[in-house]
């Protein structure tokens, strides 16, 4: 029973896909779903959202939020790009890997600061990470000298735009991270404590769990997955931009909430977030594909988000629960 809960969201995703397929068949006599190109574009867009949303899911399940990921992404992207550029045009694989490592370190630093603020200084996470949002943004812009740091490196470009077994590398990366996060949240002690933390912090503390350490790890995780998003960004676009993550932040948060999480914590799953990210990516692609005028797209995206959650709500009425 319980494992079927997500079935409704899947169903909704299939429904939108079906809608676009019918549109394509009847209106343009082509196909929406059965074209590798469409699927690849959608999945790469979903991946970029997911890289911000995955770690964030755990943070939200624990009853917190992390706004700074918007610029952890940018910080990592800029640091990676700067190092590759410093190494010159024909820097090898090793340099690229090193640059990626440095980018992750930069993002990790933001995560540690968040953890320190929230866990040790008891700053509410919304405002603490809003603070580091500003700081990471400033830091990324200062490091980048204000502009986008463009690079020319075939290794990095191959990584961002290449394929593994026919699948785009951003998708593969997001999929691996999704599996890791799913494992962490669903199958480990760490995950169980994360859920408990979202429901009742006292329960976890009194059970003898080191909650402060746990919180630091959560914020580190969310900064690092966002940082990986930055590495993918720099590789895809051959440029590190300080504001690489900012425009996707809202979509990432939306994906987590569409996936069943709640502001008060204690709820949410990685599967849900993945479906949420794909719902967003599919409608964004599909509405352009249908040629809906841009302003109507805002309206349509808003409507679909609401309907996605309404569909998700209805399961509760069927599966049970009081009042």
């Amino acid at each position, binding site marked *: 029973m*319980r494992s079927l809960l997500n079935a409704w969201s899947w169903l909704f995703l299939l429904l939108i896909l079906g809608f676009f397929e019918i549109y394509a068949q009847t209106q343009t006599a082509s196909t929406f779903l059965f074209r590798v190109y469409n699927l690849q574009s959608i999945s790469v867009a979903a991946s970029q959202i997911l890289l911000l949303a995955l770690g964030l899911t755990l943070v939200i399940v624990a009853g917190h939020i992390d706004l700074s990921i918007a610029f952890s992404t940018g910080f990592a992207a800029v640091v990676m790009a700067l190092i590759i550029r410093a190494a010159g045009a024909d820097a090898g694989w090793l340099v690229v890997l090193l640059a990626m490592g440095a980018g992750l370190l930069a993002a990790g630093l933001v995560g540690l600061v968040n953890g320190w603020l929230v866990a040790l200084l008891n700053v509410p996470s919304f405002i603490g990470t809003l603070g580091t949002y500003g700081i990471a943004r400033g830091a990324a812009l200062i490091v980048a000298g204000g502009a986008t740091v463009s690079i020319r490196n075939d290794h990095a470009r191959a990584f961002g735009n290449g394929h593994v077994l026919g699948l785009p590398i951003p998708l593969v990366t997001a999929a691996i991270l999704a599996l890791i996060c799913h*494992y962490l949240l*669903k*199958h*480990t*002690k760490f*995950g*169980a*404590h994360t*859920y*408990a933390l*979202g*429901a*009742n912090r*006292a*329960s*976890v*503390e*009194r*059970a*003898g*769990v*080191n909650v402060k350490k746990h919180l630091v790890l959560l914020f580190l995780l969310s900064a690092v997955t966002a940082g990986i998003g930055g590495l993918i960004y720099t590789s895809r676009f051959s440029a590190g931009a300080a504001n690489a993550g900012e425009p996707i932040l809202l979509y990432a948060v939306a994906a987590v909430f569409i996936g069943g999480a709640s502001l008060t914590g*204690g*709820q949410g799953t990685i599967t849900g977030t993945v479906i949420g990210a794909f719902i967003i990516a599919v409608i964004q692609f599909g509405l352009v594909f249908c040629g809906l005028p841009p302003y109507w797209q805002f309206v349509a995206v808003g409507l679909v988000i609401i309907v996605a959650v309404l569909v998700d709500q209805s399961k509760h009425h069927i599966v049970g629960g009081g009042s």
Partner: protein
Amino acid sequence: MAEDRRLRKRFGGNEAVRDVSFEVNAGECVVLAGDNGAGKSTVIKMISGVYQPTAGKVWMNGELLTGKTPEAVRSAGIETIYQDLALADNLDPGLNLYLGRERTRRVLGLPFLDRKTMREDAVKVMKGLGIVVPDPAAPVREMSGGQRQAIAIARAIHWQAGLVIMDEPTAALGVPEQREVMALIERLKSKGVGIILISHNLPDIFAAADRIIVLARGIVAGERRPAETNDEEIVRMMMGATL
């Protein structure tokens, strides 16, 4: 075994507990009795590390516990049943039972939570308390008051503790379950486990206690062995300071 010396706790302007000292020996059950708001829960939270005492010290087997986290206190062998139960409402009884000490099994070398075993254990321990849970996979949010309390009790007794602290453990329990808990306390005592029990139920207090410490308005109003006293005197001591 465990010793509390001159514990004191101040909340803002309100001094909830003053100069409370007592000790618990192995295999002994000390009852903390007292009227509502006397400071009983505050005392045990200072022992279990949830509150830091404003003054005073706590030792366990010679080791100083004051200033330690609930984590450290728990691994020093003190298990606590809190009055507010401290359950994670969104998890099932199995995970609540094992919270902080979850069981895992390895799959391809990776540890996975062993939800099934934990659930089965929870059902078993609760059955020992006389409680049947209709759906052991449901979150404890959906359990009745007594079922929830049984989970909190199960969590504390499931581990090899040297000292078990119970803050009104039978308040929500039915008659047979209350009897089970009283029997359980006897079993624990016979195994050499020390017990601090808080209860408002006089028959239970007299049945379980080796010593009764009466708190009134945050101070120790007196200490008696059950054989030396009676209901009336205990109630008078409790009220002494409140009237």
